[in-house]
């Protein structure tokens, strides 16, 4: 995610190619590089360490088996990994919430919270990335930001998001569309 995927072949892409060939060492390197950020994402979504561990295992097994499906022309390796692990966590969350018939946990939660700015384990590259995204998020209107972050992290349906935000469904969809487009446009070339 440090460079545009079409202009340079990042090391992560090379590692992914090696993993696709069954290179366990490359997989171990990827795990070292990715597991903190991905575990952080999963914990944010699931808020259950044990379930987060299961989701992380599941996600990395997916990477091991599906590394060959990565297309460097379409996205960066980090984006590819984020979306895989996010979807795994959302699936688990929805499955769990269906079982419990409620999402009160999400209701009490702030839709978006900035991460702590000082983390001793955070790499310089990760820090730059986070700062760029935070800056981009601050540049879009509050209602759009709320709609996008709630849609990304909560696992709620469109209707549930509309209820949560107290806005018509069409309005929420429009907010999500505008917010996501603006975010993508602002971050274009920066990640």
């Amino acid at each position, binding site marked *: 995610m440090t460079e545009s995927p079409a202009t340079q072949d990042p090391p992560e892409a090379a590692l992914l190619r090696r993993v696709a060939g069954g290179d366990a060492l490359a997989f171990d390197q990827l795990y070292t590089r990715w*597991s903190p950020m991905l575990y952080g994402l999963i914990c944010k979504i699931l808020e259950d360490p044990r379930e987060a561990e299961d989701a992380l295992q599941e996600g990395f097994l997916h990477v091991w088996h599906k590394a060959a499906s990565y297309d460097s022309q379409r996205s960066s390796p980090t984006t590819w990994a984020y979306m895989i692990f996010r979807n795994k966590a959302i699936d688990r969350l929805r499955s769990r919430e269906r079982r419990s018939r409620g999402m009160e946990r999400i209701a009490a939660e702030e839709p978006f919270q900035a991460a702590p700015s000082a983390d001793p384990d955070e790499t310089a590259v990760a820090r730059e990335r986070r700062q760029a995204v935070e800056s981009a998020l601050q540049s879009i209107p509050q209602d759009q930001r709320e709609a996008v972050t709630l849609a990304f992290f909560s696992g709620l349906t469109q209707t549930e998001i509309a209820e949560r935000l107290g806005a018509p469904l069409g309005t929420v969809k429009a907010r999500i569309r505008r917010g*996501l487009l603006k975010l993508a446009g602002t971050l274009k070339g920066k990640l």
Partner: protein
Amino acid sequence: MISEQTEEQASLYVLGLLAPEEAIAFQAEVAIDSQLADLVAALETGAAALAATLPPRNPPPALRGHIAARIKQSETDLVNVLVPFPGVSQWIPWAIAACLMVVVACLSYDRYHIKLLVDSFLERDLRLQGQLDHVQRVDLGLNIQLDNAIAQLNVDSQQRTAMQDQYDALHRQLGDLQNRDTLSRIKIATLASLLKNDPQAMAVIAWDPTAQRGILQPVNLPAAQTTQDYQLWIIDPAYPAPVSAGVFDPAKRANFQPLHPITKAGKFAISLEKKGGSSAPQGPIVLLSD
């Protein structure tokens, strides 16, 4: 140009907010629309960037080993599928594999057989094509010969018509000549009456010595009595006695033919004979030629 509605669909798709059937339909559109695929990729980058706002968290150290073990286990499971174990469930994949091998073998055999058939058909097709070419050449030659024959036939027909015309002309000439010859050889004889009571009675005879027949025309000859018949005789020096030419009705013209071949008709005579005629003249001579 992508519409706002499509952009909205793409945003919801990226965030996993579409119903499963909608997501599948949209994915199909993405697969065939590169512009839409680019939009989805950009939106995914924007959405994934949200995750970068989160602080990293180190997973439990043991998790790496667990993942490695699960990967190894999955690899082992994959290998185990290929290793036979006792038990019915373990044999199922082998049975399926065996069936597939049989199917593949059958298909391979069929393919080989079909290839042989195709080759033989091609070879036969080539052979038939060669034969067809030969037949076409022969047909062309026969057509030429037929045309020549028809042309020759036309010539022959014209010649035949001409020859037929010549033949007809010659035949007509021959007929004329024969007529002339017949007329030239026919002997006309007049028979005068020897009857004192009927001196005006007479007869005219036309005799064709070639055809050995003649025509008798009686004139003023009185009817014979019911017990008698007029009988015609030809006097030929070759015979000691006159040769009979038959009895006749004096009131009608009659065709006659002598009883024996006549070499030279010297004279003709008519006599009155008993009814039915005689083999030799016995009654009186009533008419006699010169």
